[in-house]
């Protein structure tokens, strides 16, 4: 789960990580009031959960009252990578001496929490990791004992030669680590970490992602979820305990299992079609779950044909068949359905569906090809 910059900064403040003075605003009058409180010049920053806000024109420095109005009006409501800006952050201008990167992630290879730092700020760390890996300093936390103070100091000393600044940075690294562990984060990033002209460190930008598996023990974090910035179908799917991701094609896919669901999308593409979505109905799929899946799928108006790819193991094909039948009755499905149901109780499934007007396939390759073929006639 992702949160906005302003929410991440609220958490930073709670953990004692210094952030600029700033206000979150929802309309122009709030922006103007915040600007006069904080002082002009000030920075106006779009709050959307995508990278590249600056390049898209979503971050501006307003030097006059007129510019506050001009930029405020411009940024509020603008679209960045398809997401509408509904909130902006008005922030004090920080006099930047140097910019650095400080971030914490779980290192999948070493199965440890790692503090990464880089003397260059504002960078995309994955890009640096690929092109210039020596530029990144990695310090690992002990899985049981945590981030030792001397290791945090190593982070500070890597970034800054002035001991006073280095130790202030170490303290920020320790606080960021504490936040990361206590809140089940999967990423906590200060990018850039700024050393200002008066020698103070400040988190100019903030990004925190959370481990979805940890959310059950952090209702306060779950409450920060911005439901408006998520795809409506994806939200609905989560409520129904289904995994769904919207894509831009027109072949709706219903699959059991995440790996097979991805492979099904890939196969549709392989044969020249465009998948409309990723949809995993999970292991023990009841007819109701299949109904829910179809309901979500059909909300996407691009879907013109539905492709069921079920490899029955724990999932019983007859359950899926009953779900399809019930959904056809209840939801008035106009789109043709191509069904590949194999494995547990596949014979029963065929019996259930023989009068249902479906197009059957005996392999996933055949199913994908048929779905594409059918599309030509629709």
């Amino acid at each position, binding site marked *: 789960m992702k949160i906005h910059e302003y929410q991440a900064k609220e958490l930073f403040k709670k953990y004692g990580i210094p952030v600029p003075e700033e206000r979150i605003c929802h309309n122009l009058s709030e922006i103007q009031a915040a600007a006069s409180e904080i002082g002009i010049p000030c920075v106006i920053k779009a709050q959307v959960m995508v990278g590249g806000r600056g390049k898209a024109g979503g971050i501006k420095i307003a030097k006059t009252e007129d510019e506050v109005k001009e930029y405020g009006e411009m940024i509020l409501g603008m679209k960045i990578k398809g997401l509408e800006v509904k909130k902006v952050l008005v922030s004090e201008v920080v006099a930047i001496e140097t910019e650095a990167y400080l971030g914490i992630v779980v290192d999948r*290879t070493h199965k440890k929490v790692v503090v990464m730092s880089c003397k260059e700020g504002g960078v995309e760390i994955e890009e640096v990791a690929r092109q210039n890996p020596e530029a990144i300093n990695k310090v690992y936390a*002990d899985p049981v004992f945590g981030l030792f103070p001397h290791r945090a100091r190593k982070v500070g000393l890597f970034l800054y030669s002035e001991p006073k600044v280095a130790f202030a940075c170490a303290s920020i690294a320790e606080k960021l680590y504490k936040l990361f*562990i206590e809140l089940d984060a999967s990423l906590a990033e200060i990018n850039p970490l700024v050393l200002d002209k008066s020698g103070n460190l400040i988190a100019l930008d903030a990004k925190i992602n959370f481990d979805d598996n940890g959310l059950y023990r952090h209702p306060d974090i779950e409450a920060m979820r911005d439901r408006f910035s998520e795809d409506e179908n994806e939200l609905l799917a989560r409520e129904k305990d289904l995994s769904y*991701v919207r894509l831009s094609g027109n072949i709706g896919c219903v699959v059991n299992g995440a790996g097979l*669901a991805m492979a099904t999308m*890939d196969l549709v593409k392989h044969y020249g079609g465009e998948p409309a979505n*990723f949809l995993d109905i999970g292991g023990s799929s009841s007819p109701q779950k299949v109904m829910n899946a179809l309901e979500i799928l059909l909300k996407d108006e691009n879907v013109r044909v539905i492709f069921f790819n079920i490899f*029955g193991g724990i999932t019983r094909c007859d359950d899926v068949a009953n779900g399809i039948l019930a959904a056809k009755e209840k939801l008035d499905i106009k789109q043709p359905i191509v069904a590949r149901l194999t494995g547990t109780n596949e014979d029963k499934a065929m019996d259930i569906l023989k009068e249902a007007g479906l197009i059957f396939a005996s392999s996933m390759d055949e199913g994908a090809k048929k779905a594409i073929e059918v599309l030509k006639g629709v």
Partner: protein
Amino acid sequence: MSILVNKDTKLVVQGITGRDGSFHTEQMLKYGTRVVAGVTPGKGGVSVHGVPVFNTVEEAVAETQANTSVIFVPAKFAVGAVYEAIDAGVKLVVCISEGIPALEMVKITGYLKDKNCRLIGPNCPGLISPGEAKVGILPGHIFKPGNIGVISRSGTLTYEIVDNITRAGLGQSTCIGIGGDSIIGTKFIDCLELFAQDPQTEAVVLVGEIGGRDEQDTAEYIKREFKKPVFGFIAGKTAPADKRMGHAGAIISGTSGTAAEKIKAFESADIKVGETPAEVARLIKETLS
């Protein structure tokens, strides 16, 4: 021969009285797995499908000499169940449960460091040595004893590929679902090290997916020291960036962890990569016959 599970596997099922635990206990028994004990705290003394249930894993191990555990308990209790199994001294713990926070896996990894115990999973379908033993939820009927080792990050996609391999007339030595989370107990390389030593295994199939760099690291390892032929498949070529595709670990972050970079890494290690699941079986058949 096979790896990790075989006729000598004596299994204890943690969460045996639950819906999934009970159902799959029956399935594993039918397959011929020696399920010797079950554990559900507070239900000690009853039996499930003829298998005696104990209150603790320690007791189950003492009474039945179980050497392997499989975990079917909800995520909230699964972490504790893993520690209990490790402490009871079983050599292999297979965690089917999904939803364990990554930071708990970091701690479990730390705890396992000086223990003589291997963890498979979490969020995995388990593993099977066809004709010998099945530990987990894999559908037994699609497997056939043979010489192909299979290692996979997913469940049903593995069945799809295995089904194609079996239909092509080839069997499997051991098939391991290592799990779809970002932090897992046993990775591709760990399994390859075991397959390297297993004379029965002539070739290995790696079923990977987007997210992380385990496939890339594995390709480097294979280049360095793995001598048997290796085949591969990567799911998620059409997956968008920064979206979790079902599995907690299946996410392209920014521009890293893509299917393209994994396929490239595989190919650089002379791993034959199938474009489709069916093609994987064809490639194996062509190469081995």
